[in-house]
């Protein structure tokens, strides 16, 4: 088994308030289908819009996301899966891929999640 982080990218500012009720429902359904695809959801985070982000590079603090791009990170989740094909199958079915954005899958090297991690 290996762990993969799946990062969701959406058009800036990636505000979940912009999602339609159907889109929101699709995300909820996706979270539930992960086990059936052969993966296990370990952690998931939906982020506030990128307009609330603050970046630090060296000593300089700036308003906004780290990379100036049309698409910004909207959230991420970490799954456990036996191999990349399973992780990619989960990723491919993420609704973000059909909502004008997409996802990036990265293998996790190491992780730590505190016991009381739910926001």
């Amino acid at each position, binding site marked *: 088994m*290996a762990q993969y982080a799946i990062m969701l990218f959406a058009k800036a500012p990636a505000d979940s308030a912009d999602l339609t009720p159907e889109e929101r429902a699709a995300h909820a359904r996706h979270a539930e289908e992960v086990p059936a695809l052969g993966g296990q959801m370990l952690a998931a985070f939906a982020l506030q819009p990128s307009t609330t982000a603050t970046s630090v590079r060296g000593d300089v603090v700036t308003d906004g996301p780290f990379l100036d791009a049309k698409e910004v990170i909207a959230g991420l989740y970490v799954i456990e899966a036996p*191999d*990349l094909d399973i992780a990619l199958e989960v990723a491919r079915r993420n609704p973000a891929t059909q909502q004008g954005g997409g996802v990036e*899958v990265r*293998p996790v090297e190491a992780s730590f999640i505190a016991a009381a991690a739910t926001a």
Partner: protein
Amino acid sequence: MTDPAEIAAAVADAHRRGWALVLAATARVARDLDLAEECVQEAYAAALETWSRTGIPREPVAWLTTTAKRRALDVLRREQVFRTKLPLLLDPDEAATDELSTVEDEAVAESEPVEPTDVVPDERLRLIFLCCHPALAQEAQMALTLRLVCGVPTSELARAFLVSEPTMAARLTRAKKKISVARIPYRIPSAAALPDRLAGVLGVIHLLFTMGHTAPAGASLVRADLMDQALHLARMLRELMPDEPEVGGLLALLLLSHARRATRVNDRGRLLRLSEQDRSQWDQSMIAEARDLINVGLRDGRAGRYLLQAAIASVYVDAPTYDQTDWTQILALYDRLLRVWPSPVVAVNRTVALAEVQGPGPALAEIEALEQDHRLMGYQYLPAIKAELLTRLGRRHDASAAYQRALELTTNEVERAFLAERLAEVDHPESSR
């Protein structure tokens, strides 16, 4: 004892026929592509030395497989703690326990060699699908396939891809590292994923052939090695997946192109049009092989893009002279091709047949409509075909502009020379004959 030249020939033959099989089998034991490559290389080196003492074994490929696997096992035993902690190549079908002992028994059992293709018919298929995994960049897929499946040395790969050897080595290392870190599985894709994944594999083989056929830059039109390797891969895939019509289609397409390679340029290296080529020089056995593949594939009824492209090529080739080409049939096949593969490039090529069936006027109208497609912006054959149509319509001034545009987009020197000659003809029609 045995003639050294004979030994060298036997090793070279086993390299060509057996490399993929030996490496694929060794990779399963080694669970690390670098280690597998190393062991296979050592096995081939050992073959040269051992066979001159003991004679060429009855089953050279089986001998090489056993030798390479044994070497991998030795290394694994030495480094067992490290390797079992971190299997670098993920083999999902392998039982999680007792791996080493199972593998050992297998390797020992193979010291009584049997025809290896009977034992593990799909080992090479796993390797091919691994190398062509869509999570790898296509450049890396091509390089990895040639390196691991065909055994092409890194130095030769660098030359074929016009990069330095360190660059090519880094490209291969990066790809192999991703395979192990991201756990790209060493397995044949599931039935659901197979059509997509197979299309990827066919795309890589086709691209390798095309690169060999028209090198994107440089003076030599035919990088024969790449074409030979692509053909070798297509044959291997056909042998491994005989029931996939598109595999047969791709092989037929490559055969038809390869059968004509000797006549593509004249003695002075000038590009020859199909109408100028000496048909008696075409390789008739390759053409016959392709024709059989196409007939079988078309009967199957699931004709895909490669099979239809091959069918089009075979209509060209079947005509006794260029003027006797069955253009109506070619146009009908292009219409079918566009339905299964709506590519703008296909639409451009279709206009060549359209010009023969309906005349250059309607074909030019079609070309002008296609010019609006931004995907064709850099496609050098569009202005080249347009120029040819304009020439036939007597519009020399416009033809000249189109040839100039085609020249701007073309990097292959042989093709440039051809276009420059056409340009000179339309610019100075009286002096050209």
